[in-house]
């Protein structure tokens, strides 16, 4: 749990005649991340010949799948051999039908949109006993379209400024819109078109149907009905095609992806006329399984060995399921390197405590649990799911801290129960003791970070770095004692002498092993520790808002009916405060881990382990 999965670098050699079978075996196992193997004495391999036709079919099948409507799939299909698969794909000749259907649906949509707009306009122009299309001649022209109602006067003035040889008729098409027709002297047509477009007149494209508006409107309505019928016919046909072919299309697409992965794999290999060599990373625990599988399958015609290398392996974390959301939080910043400590468990233990100390209200804790559970369901499969899980876990210590702080939706328990059960530590009345406690907690957290840094350095056999990290712990302790003694007289004055000496001695390894950058970092140590005051700052902000909401807006029975008006506002404001508190506590709690804690020991920058394989959904 504290370390990523140990990886082994392997190299294997097999006969060329077994190349495709070897690739298939590795792909089925899904345990090896292939790496590029190059050797001057060998020639680089290429993807197998079928790769090009596979890719061509894959593009086709993806388009077919996208054009069909998804239907539930219950049965998995058997993976077909390459030749059969290509033949099967070619036999699925849906491309033309689907693309014609798609084009026709698109044309219907565009025409319906245009006609619906025309319908609105002609409905507004119904009283006009004139064939609109006849209004375009060598002497006159017209514009038909819509404009927001408050701009109608401006439209009239704009045209009037150009000429007085025009007629404007307008009628309401909605609450805020007016349909207009402007008939104007052709000489001023172009100038008017530009001017009215500038003030927001949206000219409509009218269908080329001759006749008076009443007649055109009837024709447009009839056409719209026909288009609707055609559309529903096409959709029925699409549904029928989907029911018949969707399952087959996704299975074939998956098979093509599997085969194209396999066809491309040899481009990582090198080989001779009769043999080929490949390299890759495999979890060390799976090495013997891989070795056995190769030897069983090829009866001694394949050999594999483990390599000693300084290369950094890809990272595979192995945390139990309930820690996965915290793994996500760690990887969000950066994945650990394969050989360093995996801080997921530490994050999972420390973060909820910081979060709880910030939100720190038992009522808010319970509410945040429900909010988190709703978000988890609503945003399943998105980035918000692991974050909601973290919120859900952290809501339990929040309730606990709420009890300690004696905060229940901004009330004290005595206010709610009417009698005192215990004496809590309300934040607003204990600011200075809590501030000191937060800073002490920060100092401990950071000292722990330095110790982990020392452990990491020892594991990397970098002993100088380890000594420097330990010196930081001594420097931190002595600094705190000196400040407590000299500034706050918390300890007898003589304590300053031994701790002064310890602090000075701690500076020496830092200066020697970390040089100028180490010394420059010393003020940063104080700033890092003070940074933990944010736990109190965020908490106090949340408490003050909760108390204000209770003081100003708490609905009471003596208010009468007004109580029911106030209730939703009161609840909404508390809900808003909970949301802000949840978000702030998440960001600030994570930050204290990422910036103040991780910076003491964590390298990050690991590359994720991507095994050669395929997560099958539709094939067996």
């Amino acid at each position, binding site marked *: 749990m504290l370390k990523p999965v140990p990886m082994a670098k392997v190299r294997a050699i097999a006969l060329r005649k077994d190349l495709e079978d070897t690739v298939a075996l590795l792909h089925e196992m899904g345990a090896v991340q292939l790496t590029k193997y190059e050797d001057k004495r060998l020639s680089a391999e290429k993807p197998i010949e079928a790769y090009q036709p596979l890719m061509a079919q894959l593009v086709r099948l993806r388009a077919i799948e996208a054009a069909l409507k998804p239907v539930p799939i219950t049965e998995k299909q058997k993976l077909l051999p390459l030749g059969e698969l290509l033949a099967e794909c070619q036999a699925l000749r849906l491309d033309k039908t689907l693309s014609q259907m798609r084009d026709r649906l698109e044309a219907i949509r565009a025409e319906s949109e245009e006609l619906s707009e025309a319908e609105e306009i002609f409905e507004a122009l119904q009283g006009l006993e004139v064939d609109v299309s006849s209004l375009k001649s060598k002497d006159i022209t017209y514009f038909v379209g819509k404009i927001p109602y408050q701009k109608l006067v401006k439209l009239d003035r704009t045209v009037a400024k150009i000429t007085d040889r025009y007629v404007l008729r307008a009628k309401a098409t909605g609450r805020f819109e007016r349909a207009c027709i402007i008939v104007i002297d052709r000489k001023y047509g172009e100038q008017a078109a530009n001017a009215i477009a500038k003030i927001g007149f949206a000219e409509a494209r009218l269908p080329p149907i001759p006749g008076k508006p009443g007649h055109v409107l009837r024709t447009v309505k009839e056409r719209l009905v026909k288009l609707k019928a055609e559309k529903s016919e096409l959709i029925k046909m699409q549904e029928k095609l989907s029911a018949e072919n969707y399952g087959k299309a996704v299975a074939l697409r998956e098979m093509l992806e599997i085969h194209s992965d396999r066809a491309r794999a040899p481009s990582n290999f090198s080989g001779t006329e009769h043999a080929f060599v490949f390299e890759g990373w495999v979890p060390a625990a799976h090495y013997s399984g891989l070795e056995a599988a190769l030897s069983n399958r090829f009866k001694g015609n394949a050999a594999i060995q483990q390599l000693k290398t300084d290369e950094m392996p890809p990272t595979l974390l192995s945390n139990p399921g309930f820690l996965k959301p915290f793994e996500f939080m760690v*990887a*969000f*910043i*950066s994945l650990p390197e394969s050989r360093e400590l995996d801080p997921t468990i530490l994050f999972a233990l420390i973060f909820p405590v910081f979060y709880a100390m910030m939100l720190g209200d038992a009522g808010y804790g319970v509410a945040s649990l429900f909010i988190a559970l709703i978000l988890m369901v609503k945003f399943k499969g998105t980035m918000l799911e692991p974050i909601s899980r973290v919120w859900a876990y952290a809501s339990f210590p929040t309730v606990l801290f709420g009890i300690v702080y004696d905060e229940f939706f901004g009330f004290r328990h005595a206010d709610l129960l009417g009698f005192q059960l215990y004496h809590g530590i309300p934040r607003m009345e204990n*600011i*200075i003791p809590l*501030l000191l406690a937060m800073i002490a907690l920060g100092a401990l957290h950071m000292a722990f970070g330095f110790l982990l840094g020392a452990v990491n350095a020892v594991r990397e056999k970098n002993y100088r770095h380890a000594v420097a990290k330990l010196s930081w712990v001594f420097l931190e302790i002595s600094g705190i004692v000196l400040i407590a003694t000299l500034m706050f007289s918390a300890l007898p004055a003589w304590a300053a002498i031994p701790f002064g000496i310890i602090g000075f001695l701690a500076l020496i390894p830092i200066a020697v092993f970390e040089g100028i950058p180490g010394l420059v970092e010393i003020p940063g140590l104080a*700033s890092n520790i*003070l*940074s933990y*005051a*944010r736990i109190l*700052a965020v908490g106090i902000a949340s408490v003050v808002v909760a108390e204000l909401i209770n003081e100003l807006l708490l609905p009471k029975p003596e208010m009468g009916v007004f109580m029911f008006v106030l209730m939703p506002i009161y609840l909404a404001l508390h809900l808003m405060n909970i949301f802000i508190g949840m978000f702030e506590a998440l*960001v*600030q709690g994570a*930050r204290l881990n*990422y*910036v103040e804690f991780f910076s003491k020991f964590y390298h990050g920058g690991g590359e994720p382990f991507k095994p050669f394989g395929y997560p099958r959904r539709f094939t067996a």
Partner: protein
Amino acid sequence: MDLGSGIATFGIALGAAAAIFGGAIGTGMAQSAIGSAGMGVIAERPEEAGKLLIWLVIPETIVIFGFVIGILLALKIGG
């Protein structure tokens, strides 16, 4: 309260407000610059969002300093 202690209280309150005000403005200025640059990076490389978050949150410590000083001063008024 006599005039002298009134002026002293006013001075302390002003100092507390100035501490938070300066810290908040400073943090805001730093975060606006980092945030806008960060958005540019995220547009091209969304996978770097996590690392950029670290840079974005670093200046927040400035306002925390302001908060600590502000609280210490404000509590002097009450006492």
